[in-house]
């Protein structure tokens, strides 16, 4: 039997068709297949060319110009942006991001009304969704559409709109080359695996997910702790509506999706959660918001409770400058305005400023192995850097 070329991502039809998944046709699938293949090609085959161009011509010229080695990823970026190979590579990569948005918008928007109706039938305001139409959108969210997503997470095109959630959900399998699994839930599964390995007796009764979007990461955690009450918050209503409907269609009933701002958790009592986590959330908040969120996390976490924050690795001194530069691409070219500054921060320092004590803090590598249905070995590791803390248990516990 023919094996797919090594560099091929799994075809998009492997994505799981849950009850909220938008209808799509043959050519829609083919478009996603193209974007996924193109992404992989840019990352692997042509990605190597960026480093070659750097080593062979950009770095030597830069050294001559500076009369020293480059000292920051910013110096490298300025020089690389003048390189013809890297410029074309970047332009192509940016286009794949824009194409990915256009593809899913062309599928989702014409059926926005139907999706809303499907969601309405699945959502129960009493049980799994609580919206707050008066919640102010943080200015850092309103001012830029993250990762080239027109309208971002929060734009509602119709009353009760879920199209932002559907749009986000559809493209994920293509942009991650399937590495996050058929339900894009690898991060959640990785957290569960990590907890089982490192805290085998941990049985949280109440869990908080901040910046949950459509609950990709929330659901596997809720599933692993079926007796726990899971509260998943986000500021954006369209993604929350989609999240609640999606969870219901997948039969998960212990999650409540709440429209709230992580900077102000005053609705929750101090010490009322055994576990508070975020996943790929910190890099989409401003530094000021990050500090506010961490202070709230520290406050609502119960003694003995765990907090865990999954991110890409910070740019530490031992990370080579070229790697810092290439990891920073999204910050400058994919509408991720906080990415660069966040990764310059020592998140543990921020947590310490928020009231965690040094012995409570830790970092961890949180990983899951990708398993895809079918005989193909498309397996790719999905791994994150986690910044965490275990709050000291109070006296007598």
């Amino acid at each position, binding site marked *: 039997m023919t094996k797919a070329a090594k560099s091929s991502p799994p075809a998009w039809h492997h994505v799981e068709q849950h009850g909220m998944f938008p209808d799509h046709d043959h050519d829609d699938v083919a*478009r996603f297949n193209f974007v996924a293949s193109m992404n992989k090609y840019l990352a692997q085959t042509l990605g190597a060319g960026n480093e070659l161009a750097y080593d062979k011509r950009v770095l030597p010229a830069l050294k001559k110009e500076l009369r020293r080695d480059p000292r920051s990823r910013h110096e490298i970026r300025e020089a690389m942006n003048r390189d013809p190979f890297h410029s074309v590579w970047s332009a192509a990569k940016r286009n794949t991001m824009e194409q990915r948005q256009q593809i899913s918008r062309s599928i989702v928007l014409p059926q926005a009304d139907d999706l809303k109706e499907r969601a309405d039938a699945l959502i129960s305001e009493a049980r799994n969704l609580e919206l707050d139409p008066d919640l102010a959108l943080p200015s850092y969210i309103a001012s830029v559409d993250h990762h080239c997503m027109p309208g971002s997470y929060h734009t509602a095109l119709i009353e009760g709109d879920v199209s932002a959630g559907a749009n986000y959900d559809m493209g994920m399998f293509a942009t991650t080359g399937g590495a996050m699994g058929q339900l894009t839930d690898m991060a959640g599964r990785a957290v569960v695996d990590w907890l089982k390995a490192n805290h085998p007796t941990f049985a949280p009764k109440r869990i908080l997910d901040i910046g949950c979007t459509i609950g990709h990461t929330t659901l596997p955690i809720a599933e692993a702790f079926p007796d726990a009450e899971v509260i998943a918050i986000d500021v954006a209503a369209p993604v929350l509506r989609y999240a609640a409907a999606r969870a219901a269609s997948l039969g998960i009933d212990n999650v409540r999706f709440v429209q709230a701002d992580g900077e102000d958790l005053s609705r929750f009592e101090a010490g009322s959660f055994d576990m508070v986590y975020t996943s790929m959330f910190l890099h989409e908040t401003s530094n000021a918001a990050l500090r506010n969120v961490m202070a709230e996390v520290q406050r609502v976490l119960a003694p003995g409770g765990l907090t865990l924050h999954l991110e890409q690795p910070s740019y530490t001194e031992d990370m080579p400058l070229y790697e810092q530069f290439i990891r920073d691409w999204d910050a400058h070219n994919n509408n991720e305005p906080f990415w660069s500054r966040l990764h310059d921060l020592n998140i543990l320092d921020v947590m310490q400023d928020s009231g965690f004590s040094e012995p409570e803090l830790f970092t961890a590598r949180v990983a899951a192995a990708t398993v895809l249905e079918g005989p193909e070995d498309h397996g790719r590791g999905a791994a994150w850097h986690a910044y965490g803390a275990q709050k000291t248990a109070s006296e007598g516990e």
Partner: protein
Amino acid sequence: MGAEQPGTPTAHKKQLAKVNDMSDDLNHLINKNAKGRRPQFLNTKAEEHLMSMTMALMQELAVTRERLDTLERLVAQKGVLDLPEIETYRPDAEAEAERQTAQQKLIATVMRSMEQEIHALSEQETPEVNQQLQAVNDDRAA
């Protein structure tokens, strides 16, 4: 969030009314810009457009190829073509592998010049190679 802010149902009601009966407006909405500065990667705006068009053409060519592939496989399989079947065709593992490989081949064809730059960067062109080429050409000419 105030009701008149962008991104609220109120601000988009008009847009939706249009969307329901005019496909031009729907296209406009689909192709909306993401808020935020778009970097210029190439020397001119015109080059940016050419790049975007090339990428879109590549995408649509890949889509056409995949559709054709589906068509051919179905025709061969059944002897008869039932058009709605194309929409629900799901490749088996072998067809998936072949199609994903075809995607890679198409991309490599279109992106040839970039790959060639990588080759040029990684290999030092030696005079010896050029001599061989010269010899071949001389043979042909003779």
